[in-house]
């Protein structure tokens, strides 16, 4: 946490309300996100208990597994989920625009531009919390290797059609969520915590109810009071007023309400199976339906508050204007989505259980690159984020006090103007350090020449006395590029006296790292050349499996 963010938290404590740590919205929010609020059964490896899912905040689909230990009921749940999620994804897969992509021509080995399809927009999944995002990964893993009866007639417990496909999509969403700055799958707590600092710790911010309580406390209440109520308040029956955002449920709910309801359901089912004639069966079917309805009501009562909280969070974040470079990052999400759409259409096997060395290295490099890109872009988009970078000496802002024209030495002299900037910031500038500013969205680079006083005195140390610092330092920079080809710099490409400028010490655009060798050239130390792609076997099934 930077000192500025810490200060914001302390301010939140003293004002009783969350404080902004961003002035613009740094994540894309789709016009039509799919909100997914799942619940899981305690102690089971991801056996879903139910979920609210949908794109309409007033009419969520309620899916319930009345007995999570029953495989058929779980499959029915996943099948219903697929029937909601996959059509939603399909609407985005169909709408495409033409785009170009660089590819290596297999014959000549040259980089050529290829015309490809790019989906015009991408779907977006919103989960309440980080634990929910993990649950999406878990669901994806549990489904993508399943076999349907069509794929493998011999399989002992065939999955309903489309369930393995849902698994592959959820896996893709889950993997994409690990890429910094991506917005295909978002946890509401993360999005809110990115834009507001509360008066509690980051650990407590994981509680969606408490986080919202700090950001938008009810009238006449402080954030601290409202958050405490969201965390701990219980009704007369000992149930939390604000149920956990899931997927885990509150133990008191499990023990006091859910377990007896399961028991009634099981009893009704046994009774129905033992019915001897049609009339009796009809009667008992009624009991079973009633028991099932009760469990549905319980699940809805625990998911609906979270569902509403997620939409309230969306409202709050939407009030912030979108940051300038969010669109560019969203385009990367669209590429990622289009890529997976194409892999599914091409009949490629599901994502492997473990990545091979080359894929893993590529993924890691991509995440590091995206992290650096995200940090740079957020700072450029948002003066409050930039303030943090200025505090840490990675950027400086100030007024131009003088511009002296100068030229490079060489056959064709190019402009290399010297710009003097007065700043109160204390950038960590080394000798001839490169600095960058954003000029019409493109980075212009300059070189640090020295501090003005030091230049005047011809001081070799290049240091500035304490007095000089207090009054603000005068930095001399030599502008290096983006001034056109002529002898005179293009209009507006060089700052003028009186301009306010902001330079960063970090680069604005990220270059890819060194290329990995071709797959055939991969050394054995790194897994060797990939063999024939083998489709992985489904998980072995046992009678007592939970998923």
């Amino acid at each position, binding site marked *: 946490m930077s000192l500025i963010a810490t200060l914001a938290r*302390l301010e939140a404590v003293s004002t009783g309300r969350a404080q902004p740590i961003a002035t613009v919205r740094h994540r894309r929010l789709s016009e039509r996100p799919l909100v997914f609020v799942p619940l899981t059964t305690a102690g089971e490896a991801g056996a879903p208990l139910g979920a609210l899912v949908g794109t309409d905040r007033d009419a969520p689909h309620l899916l319930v597994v009345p007995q999570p230990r029953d495989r058929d009921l779980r499959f029915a749940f996943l099948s219903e989920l697929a029937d909601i999620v996959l059509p939603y994804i399909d609407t985005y897969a169909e709408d495409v625009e033409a785009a170009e992509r660089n590819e290596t021509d297999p014959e000549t080995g040259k980089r050529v531009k290829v015309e490809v399809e790019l989906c015009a927009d991408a779907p977006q999944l919103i989960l309440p919390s980080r634990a929910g995002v993990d649950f999406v990964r878990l669901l994806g893993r549990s489904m993508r290797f399943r076999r349907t009866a069509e794929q493998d007639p011999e399989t002992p417990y065939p999955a309903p059609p489309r369930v393995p496909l849902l698994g592959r999509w959820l896996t893709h969403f889950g993997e994409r969520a690990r890429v910094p700055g991506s917005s295909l799958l978002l946890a509401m707590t993360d999005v809110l915590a990115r834009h*507001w600092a509360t008066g509690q710790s980051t650990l407590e911010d994981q509680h969606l109810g408490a986080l919202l309580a700090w950001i938008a406390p009810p009238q006449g209440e402080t954030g601290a009071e409202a958050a405490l109520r969201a965390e701990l308040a219980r009704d007369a029956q000992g149930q939390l007023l604000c149920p956990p955002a899931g997927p885990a449920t509150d133990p008191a709910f499990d023990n006091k309400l859910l377990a007896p309801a399961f028991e009634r359901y099981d009893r009704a089912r046994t009774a129905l199976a033992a019915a001897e004639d049609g009339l009796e069966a009809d009667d008992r079917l009624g009991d079973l339906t009633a028991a099932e309805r009760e469990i549905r009501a319980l699940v809805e009562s625990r998911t609906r508050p979270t569902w509403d909280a997620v939409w309230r969070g969306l409202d709050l974040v939407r009030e912030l204007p979108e940051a300038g470079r969010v669109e560019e990052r969203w385009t990367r999400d669209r590429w990622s989505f289009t890529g997976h759409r194409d892999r599914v259409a091409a009949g490629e096997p599901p994502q492997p259980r473990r990545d091979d060395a080359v894929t893993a290295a590529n993924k890691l490099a991509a995440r590091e690159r995206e992290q650096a890109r995200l940090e740079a872009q957020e700072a450029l988009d948002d003066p409050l984020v930039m303030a943090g970078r200025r505090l840490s000496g990675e950027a400086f802002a100030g007024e131009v006090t003088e511009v002296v024209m100068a030229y490079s030495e060489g056959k064709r002299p190019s402009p290399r103007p010297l710009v003097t900037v007065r700043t109160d910031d204390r950038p960590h500038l080394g000798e001839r350090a490169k600095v960058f500013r954003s000029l019409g969205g493109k980075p212009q680079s300059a070189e640090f020449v020295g501090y003005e006083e030091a230049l005047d005195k011809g001081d070799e140390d290049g240091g500035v006395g304490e007095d000089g610092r207090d009054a603000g330092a005068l930095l001399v920079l030599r502008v290096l590029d983006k001034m056109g080809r002529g002898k005179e710099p293009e209009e507006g490409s060089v700052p003028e006296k009186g301009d306010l400028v902001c330079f960063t010490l970090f680069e604005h655009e990220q270059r890819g790292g060194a290329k990995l060798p071709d797959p055939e050239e991969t050394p054995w130390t790194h897994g060797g050349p990939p063999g024939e792609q083998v489709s992985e076997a489904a998980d072995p099934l046992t009678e*007592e499996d939970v998923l």
Partner: protein
Amino acid sequence: MPLPRTRGTALRHRLAELRGPDVAAKALDARALAALAANPGCKRRAILDGAGVNKAALASALGSPSAFGQSQFALTRGNAFEAKVKADGGAELLRLVHEKLDRGAEPPAHARVPELAAIGPEGRTARTALALREAGEARGEWTLLDHPMLALDVAGSPAFLEPDAVVVHPDGSWTVVEIKSFPMLDGSADPAKVGAAARQAAVYVLALEQIAARLASDSAPAPRVRHRVLLVCPKDFSNLPTAAAVDVRKQRAVTARQLARLTRIEDIADTLPDGICFSPDLPAADLTAAVESVPATYAPECLSACELAFHCRARSRASGAVTSLGRSVRAELGDLTTVEDVLSAARGETGDPDDPAVAALRRAAHLRAEALGREAQALGRKVPAAGQPADALGLEAVAPCR
């Protein structure tokens, strides 16, 4: 050496007083001992645990009940899984121990599974020690101890610990087995849960090492307690067991150091005023005063480890301590420990401008105010509406980033 004994007795007596008359001591279990390592500086926790106070009951009596509980579904599943792992004389469990930890040994075709039942924890501890001695004499054979009872001396009183299982290898060495019901998915499990299991296992290793040291004689060296424990979990989405060896040397060292420090309970007890008692039957006001007489070191991590955390959090917040926002917050703030100190230093009202922490704070406050178009002096005073669009926050005052 009569002195230590007297001192030990005196301490036990004193701790019983703290617990309150007619209140049975809550036995320290491995989970509680392991949690101590998470916040070693907390005297409140140390004395309450050392005295065997039931912290959950105490928290409820204080009006800040703990939120710990276990779902019966998780409990059922955990028990069913453990039973499955140990079924058939522990054949599957021993196969996993052999495969993951001791491939050089004879495969366990059959194993001795001694009966460990006895009356009371002391009886069971003695029975376990006897079984371990006998297992050591039966060289070349595998022995499985199902739910043995181990005693560990904690601050002068024994804590009784019950590991899921201990396996004696044919070479006479001992292995702790932890059976957990969280899944190992494609060979990896939730790191937080594995960490907790490792800390717990480390406590068992320490307890076994004490027993091993007692078994040592001139003719035979003390049996080796292996520092790699076996963690058994369900594989993927099934309930078939799979296992991994977990190295607990680090956790063992931390816990050992922590337990050695725990003996300072005596010192803590000495500093308490007379008549202090933590009995949950006392009125809340008295209890609050009693609890306040021992300093706590609250940090948000306590919320997941200590029953008293909500009480300590409320006190920490009421006193304006910055650590209630996280331990890392302290690092940047130097000597400033309360929210108001920090804010007034940031506003420039108090604090020494030559103090680097104060100077950094003022710069941070200035930069933040500039970016938000506010006055740094107004820091933490006015209540601006959250969720306002950025232009309402006065962004025109911001230096354009050109």
